[in-house]
């Protein structure tokens, strides 16, 4: 206590424990969340070609988030629908709708995954105004939003939301693109005054952002709350069973198939010699390839595109001119494996899944059965006959 260094060590250690939990621990637990399909298959794997949520916002909406932040809207508006749980008759914990959902502020509670693509997460802590996590779901049109932004009282007489006239050009005469507002601002309170407002780019950004705020998809960790009458309560309380891991975001590792494919695929990708694909020698550990000589896999329209084509290339190789992301390459790629074409269906599925989900790529996994299907359909093809890009593009569906 009397030695300042020992003392500092003690008080910093107590702080460090909290840091370990709230920063390091929380990050380990759910820092690796990524967009996910709405539901999993029965075996716990992601359905092939499923849409992934959340989706990224448009550029306009992202700029709108900056404006929303700068104006301090977060002081009065939260963006989180809370999760309410209760014990049912059997003592099992179940999700109930809760006040937030009954108010119509969302179809389910907000989950950590909903926020992973936002630059500024503004959960807020005070609701002087309503929650906005799902504001975009209420399908107000742009004019309504602009009127509300210009002067909330013109639409909601009792609102105490401050008007933002500085975002608009105001005039008493209509002009092209301007919106009519019944303004209550001014000396004559009883009679609204008709004004015409022309939104600035900033107003349009904010409106874009507000319309983009929606958690209108289900997540594997929490589906929508389904309406179901319950006798005991006068309110319509909606309940559903709660799986053990609800509330705990599902890290990617829950998708056991995917993660084992990823690690096996990585081995095939990097291993040179029998049992490996040796892909790394040309396409590089970074997946960027080498300029002029070898095309990149990261961000490649071929890799993220049609699976059939990729399987075909993996079985027989590819030669001649090929255009990847608008850049032309001209070389030859033997079928991966030592000797070429010796990889099993499982190995090809693994390595393709790996390249389709590494270096920023995010495409559906490839299963061994898909590979064996393609292999069976091509059983008459001579093993040394490499594909040409032209042949593949004419044969298969266009890239997704």
């Amino acid at each position, binding site marked *: *206590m*009397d030695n*300042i260094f020992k003392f500092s060590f*003690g*008080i*910093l250690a107590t*702080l460090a424990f*909290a*840091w370990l939990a*709230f*920063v390091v621990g*929380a*990050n380990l637990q*759910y*820092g690796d*969340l990524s967009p996910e399909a709405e539901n999993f298959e029965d075996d716990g794997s992601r359905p092939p070609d499923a849409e992934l949520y959340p989706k990224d916002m448009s550029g306009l909406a992202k700029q709108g988030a900056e404006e929303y*932040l*700068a*104006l*301090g*809207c*977060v*002081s*009065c508006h939260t963006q989180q629908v*809370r999760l*309410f749980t209760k014990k049912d008759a059997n003592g099992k914990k179940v999700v109930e709708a*809760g*006040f937030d959902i009954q*108010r*119509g502020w969302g179809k389910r*509670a*907000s*989950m*950590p*995954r909903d*926020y*992973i*693509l*936002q630059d500024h*997460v*503004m*959960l807020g*802590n*005070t*609701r*002087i105004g309503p929650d906005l996590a799902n504001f975009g779901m209420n399908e107000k049109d742009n004019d309504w939003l602009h009127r509300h932004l210009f002067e909330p*009282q013109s639409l*909601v*007489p*009792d*609102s*105490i939301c*401050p*008007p933002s*006239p*500085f975002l608009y050009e105001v005039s008493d005469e209509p002009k092209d693109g301007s919106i009519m507002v019944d303004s209550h*601002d001014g000396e004559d309170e009883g009679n609204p005054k008709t004004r015409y407002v022309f939104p600035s780019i900033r107003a349009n950004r904010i409106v874009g952002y507000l319309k983009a705020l929606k958690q209108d998809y289900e997540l594997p960790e929490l589906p929508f709350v389904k309406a179901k009458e319950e006798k005991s309560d006068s*309110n319509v309380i909606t309940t559903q069973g709660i799986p053990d891991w609800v*509330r*705990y975001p599902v890290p990617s590792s829950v998708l056991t198939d995917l993660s084992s494919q990823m690690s096996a695929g990585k081995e095939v990708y990097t291993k040179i010699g029998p049992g490996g694909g040796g892909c790394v020698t040309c396409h590089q550990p970074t997946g960027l390839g080498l300029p002029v000589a070898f095309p990149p896999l990261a961000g490649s329209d071929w890799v993220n595109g049609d699976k059939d084509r990729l399987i075909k290339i993996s079985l027989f190789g590819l030669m001649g001119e090929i255009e990847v992301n608008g850049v032309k390459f001209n070389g030859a790629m033997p079928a991966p494996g030592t000797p070429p074409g010796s990889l099993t269906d499982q190995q090809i599925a693994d390595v393709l899944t790996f390249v389709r989900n590494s270096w920023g790529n995010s495409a559906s996994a490839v299963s061994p059965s898909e590979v064996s299907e393609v292999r069976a359909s091509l059983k008459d093809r001579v093993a040394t006959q490499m594909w040409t890009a032209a042949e593949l593009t004419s044969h298969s569906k266009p890239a997704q």
Partner: protein
Amino acid sequence: MKDTAEQVIDRSAKTVVSFFVASAGLWLLAAALLAYIAAAKLTDPFFLSSCEFLTYGKVKVAQANAFVYGWGGNSIFAATLWILARLSQVEVRGRIMLLFSGVLWNLAISFGLLGILDGHMNAHEMLEMPTVVWPVLFISYAIIAFLALVIHRSRKHSDTIAPQWFILASLIWFPALFLIAWNGLEINPARGTLPSVLSLWFGQSLIWLWLTPMALGAAYYVIPTILGRPIDKYYLAIFGFWCIAALAPWSVVHHLEGGPVPMWIPAIGTVMSIAMIFPIAVASTNFHATAFKDISKVWSNLPLRFVIFGTISYTLSSYIGVIFSLPDVAKLTQFSIINEFHFNQRVYGFFSMIIFGVVYHMLPKITGKEISKSAKSFHFWTSAFGVLILLLAYLIGGLTHGVLAQQPSLDWSSSVISSVQPYFKITKYAFVILGFSQLVFVINIWKVIFPNPFACCFTSSIEKKGKTA
């Protein structure tokens, strides 16, 4: 007549402490003005609505920052330097550096607040000032904290006592908190709601680990000094200190109850909040058992009256905080204006009242000039009355707000918020009273710091003449 050791120390601290107290006072007034504007905007949405610099959200945030960093920061520096110097029995050194860092700190906050009003707010709680000002704030803080630690290291007695633990802990915790938050939010930002957890933790810890220990340390110093009697059950103080150190960093995240974070985060906060009963009870016992042995002196001595008001407020606010952290209660009130109750209770009812007492105790010793008792008394009553009204309005208003918000059948603005409106009006008047009270405080302290503002050059030239003659 030869000066006593105390007088030598006080004189060495005079310029620096006066500077910090004077600037703290100005920030207090700035915060009071912003608080009034924000409260007025809630009662009349058209008030100043055409001015983009003064949207409610910006003003609210600027007010909290001016209050915590401007008033809180400056007054913490003043009280820390003086109390540590007195307890260590050494003079304040590095005065030029202290003044330089102080100016830097205040410039950075001014720039930061203007940045907020100009629309460059950060999304992190209590780190809203624009990114560029933080390195400056951190460096100026580091210099001041280092020089305060130098005072402590050169102390005459190696033993330390409770006020030193609390004040040093507050001094060291702030930069540590800041570095943790800065690393997690700016240098290695995580995605999703992780930064929200971290910034909430920072914002709440700032009050629990920076303002609170400072005020507790000051109370541990001022109460026995003025009363001339030791702290009752002093042996408990060390237990109370380590309880706060161990529990407070955890107890601050129960605000995320039901939010989009793993469930253990708010749960751990709730458990630790309840455990905070122990350190609160310790501090309360220490302060109040001592004070109530000589209650007439507490009443007649104004600095002490301020401090005891603060400690009682601390005890009450902390117990109320425990109740509101229970999950069922939290679900009702967590997004209501009860948050304003907690913030104002802690930084005004507790921290500021104690600091007022410390300043009134410290300034006459440093400057050798007394502050008139009636002026102090006026400040006390207006402050006590204003803060009581404010807190009651936020408490009852917050409960109304919280309970009505959970009735899905009630329309949001015409029923829920309209019912809270009267309380917004009361807070507006409370902020007027408080602003008036703070003006009296600033006049009180400026009068002793700058007794004759227009004649300073004149008097110093007379002194010079006197010396040469």
